């Protein structure tokens, strides 16, 4: 849904119930005014003589009389009065009917007439208009306080009114249609409760609501105006958003190198600014990922190369062994040993590839795990013993009686120690020794790997402590004894807050020394 359409719909959805509410409120107010006016009229009339009249001749208010507007009334008959033309003053009395004064006068006149004629009380008053306009309809009926008719001729009270009054209401009203005209019917309890005329039911036609269309038109015009204003105001906003969309699309296509134009200081320019910031973050992230990928790609390529060398040696050895076995010759133990070593080396190399991938991806702080160092030492020694034994190299270890833990990643720490031990075995002479010593003080541990191999040229010692492996030189497998394994060990140690130092031993040999804090017991 477009922004404009959404705005328009929102306005319409808000305005329609609002307008309906206004119309209803207005109708309700009008009805209340009509009710109040009719009630006032009836009460006034009854006070002004209607009560007296009614109580004397209850039949007068029993017959559904219709009283019409002034000047157009003909009284056709009064029950008990044979000839209306004999009562000339009656037509005078009927002037001004339609208001309470007039009605009062009529009632008084009737009383006087009755008294003067000395005949029986008029039991019903019938007045008919030759062509009665329904909008002038008026009627009045009398009932007792218990809502029964004032005389036997009084019709039963309309049910809706009766129910409401019986429920204790002082007044009750309803509106119904008669001959296309809305008629208000009210039941009104009089200020008195005794006598046959304690409750009156009155009917009066409601005036046509001639001003309603104006109100409705006003509302419609207001809504239209607001809609127009919203459309006008939304125009530039929509245009700017469209422009921003185009800019964003272009920026995305350019790998977020292009920036989005920022104009003004409102929410839309905030959005553009935020987008630029997000674009910068994405560009940085992509650059980091690409750099990492490039490092890994190069590493995988280099490692593939490195794995291919021992694999080729291994294949050569196995092939030579097969030839000897085929020829029934004795197998050369040196070839078997060499094959085992190459296989072992390949295993380490691939684990180191894995370790480098983890180090590249890992956050700098790896110290959230607990590592059992005694267990680690045993595992590493057992890992390298089989290959050392083929060359008569003894790999021994000692660990304290108590638990020694370090904080960190067990896989990486084990790989680090394993690399150092592997290095010590690999560059040792046949029949040499390698020892792993774990020692613990109060809050620190020292893990030493000693060998009695040839050691390292003094000028190369500091290079062993460098963290990053240097591609070509460091990867030389047998050259000066520096391998990728030691670089990884150094990196892992650094990231775990450990130190890794190398020193030559007398008379010959190398000591690698990991040192670090013991975590406080959990």
């Amino acid at each position: 849904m477009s922004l404009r359409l959404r705005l328009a719909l929102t306005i319409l959805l808000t305005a329609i119930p609002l307008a309906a509410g206004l119309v209803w409120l207005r109708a309700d107010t009008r009805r209340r005014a009509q009710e109040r006016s009719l009630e006032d009229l009836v009460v006034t009339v009854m006070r002004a003589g209607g009560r007296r009249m009614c109580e004397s001749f209850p039949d007068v208010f029993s017959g559904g009389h219709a009283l019409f507007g002034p000047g157009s009334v003909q009284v056709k008959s009064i029950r008990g009065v044979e000839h209306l033309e004999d009562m000339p003053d009656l037509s005078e009395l009927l002037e001004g009917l339609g208001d309470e004064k007039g009605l009062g006068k009529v009632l008084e006149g009737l009383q006087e007439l009755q008294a003067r004629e000395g005949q029986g009380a008029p039991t019903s008053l019938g007045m008919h208009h030759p062509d009665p306009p329904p909008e002038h309809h008026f009627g009045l009926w009398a009932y007792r306080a218990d809502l029964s008719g004032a005389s036997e001729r009084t019709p039963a009270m309309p049910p809706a009114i009766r129910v409401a009054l019986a429920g204790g209401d002082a007044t009750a009203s309803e509106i119904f249609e008669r001959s296309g005209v809305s008629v208000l019917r009210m039941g009104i309890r009089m200020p008195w409760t005794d006598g046959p005329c304690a409750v009156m039911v009155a009917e009066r036609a409601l005036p046509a609501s001639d001003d309603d269309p104006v109100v409705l038109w006003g509302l419609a015009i207001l809504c239209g105006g607001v809609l127009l204003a919203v459309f006008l105001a939304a125009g530039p906003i929509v245009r700017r958003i469209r422009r921003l969309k185009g800019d964003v699309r272009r920026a995305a296509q350019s790998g977020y190198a292009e920036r989005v134009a920022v104009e003004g200081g409102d929410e839309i320019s905030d959005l553009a600014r935020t987008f630029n910031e997000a674009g910068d973050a994405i560009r940085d992230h992509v650059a980091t990922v690409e750099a990492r990928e490039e490092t890994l790609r190069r590493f995988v390529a280099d490692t593939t190369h490195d794995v291919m060398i021992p694999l080729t040696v291994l294949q050569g050895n196995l092939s030579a062994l097969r030839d000897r076995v085929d020829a029934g010759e004795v197998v050369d133990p040196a070839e078997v040993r060499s094959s085992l070593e190459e296989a072992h080396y390949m295993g380490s190399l691939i684990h180191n590839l894995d370790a480098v991938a983890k180090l590249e991806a890992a956050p700098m702080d790896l110290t959230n795990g607990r590592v059992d160092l005694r267990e680690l030492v045993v595992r590493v020694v057992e890992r390298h013993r089989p290959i050392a034994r083929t060359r008569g190299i003894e790999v021994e270890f000692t660990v304290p009686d108590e638990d020694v833990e370090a904080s960190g990643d067990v896989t990486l720490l084990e790989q680090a120690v394993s690399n150092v031990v592997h290095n010590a075995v690999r560059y040792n002479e046949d029949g040499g020794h390698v020892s792993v010593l774990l020692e613990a003080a109060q809050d620190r541990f020292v893990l030493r790997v000693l060998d009695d191999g040839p050691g390292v040229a003094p000028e190369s010692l500091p290079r062993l402590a460098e963290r990053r492996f240097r591609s070509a030189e460091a990867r030389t497998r047998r050259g000066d004894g520096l391998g990728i394994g030691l670089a990884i060990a150094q990196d892992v140690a650094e990231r775990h807050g450990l130190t890794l130092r190398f020193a030559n031993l007398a008379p010959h040999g190398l000591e690698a020394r990991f040192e670090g804090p013991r975590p406080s017991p959990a």
Partner: protein
Amino acid sequence: MNHVNDRILLVEDDEKLGDQIARHLAEQGFEVTWRKDGDAALQEDPEDYRLVVLDLMLPGTYGMDVLKSYRRTHDVPVLILSARNETTDKVRALELGADDYLTKPFWPEELVARVQARLRRPVLQRSDRIRVGRLELRESAREVAVDGEPVSLTRVEFDLLLALARRPGVAVERAWLADHVLDPERTGTERTLDVHVSRLRKKLGPCGPLVRTVWSIGYRLDTEGSNA
């Protein structure tokens, strides 16, 4: 060590590797039952075995789920095999109750050493009587016997032997021995320690060679027949 009645359940899907592991364990005297997928492993009652070697990457039910299922009812030792050298895998397996893990590739000797380490009964270090092969020590009485024949040792020699015998097969550092065994009143050096060791070896006669010198560390009491 004699493992004749030691039954091991091996759960490994790779034919060649499984065959190799089964053969190596059998050579060590274990009776190996080999199951090739997780669902078959779930049919097994771990109660029937002294140890389970469980590969993590299995067809059917995943290795971790097999472990979880076993741990619901049994505490048979479980050694996990994994091709992924992942810390999260190890931590998870240990949390689920695995006893140990081994990352591929491994040497057959490595596997055997891990299995034996899990099956080895813990040495009751605080018990009064320590027996290492033909050698027997009674701590409270400070008596030593070789093949049941009492051997008379000095205080330092006895303490030295006791310190080694408490952790047979594990090397003990020379400096630690000098600190804990030699009389602090006298100026005992590590050289003095060597002299004591040499006398101890002589007195132990046929068991003398069990007290091994370990390069750059110190000494170790070998368990008889130990190939370590």
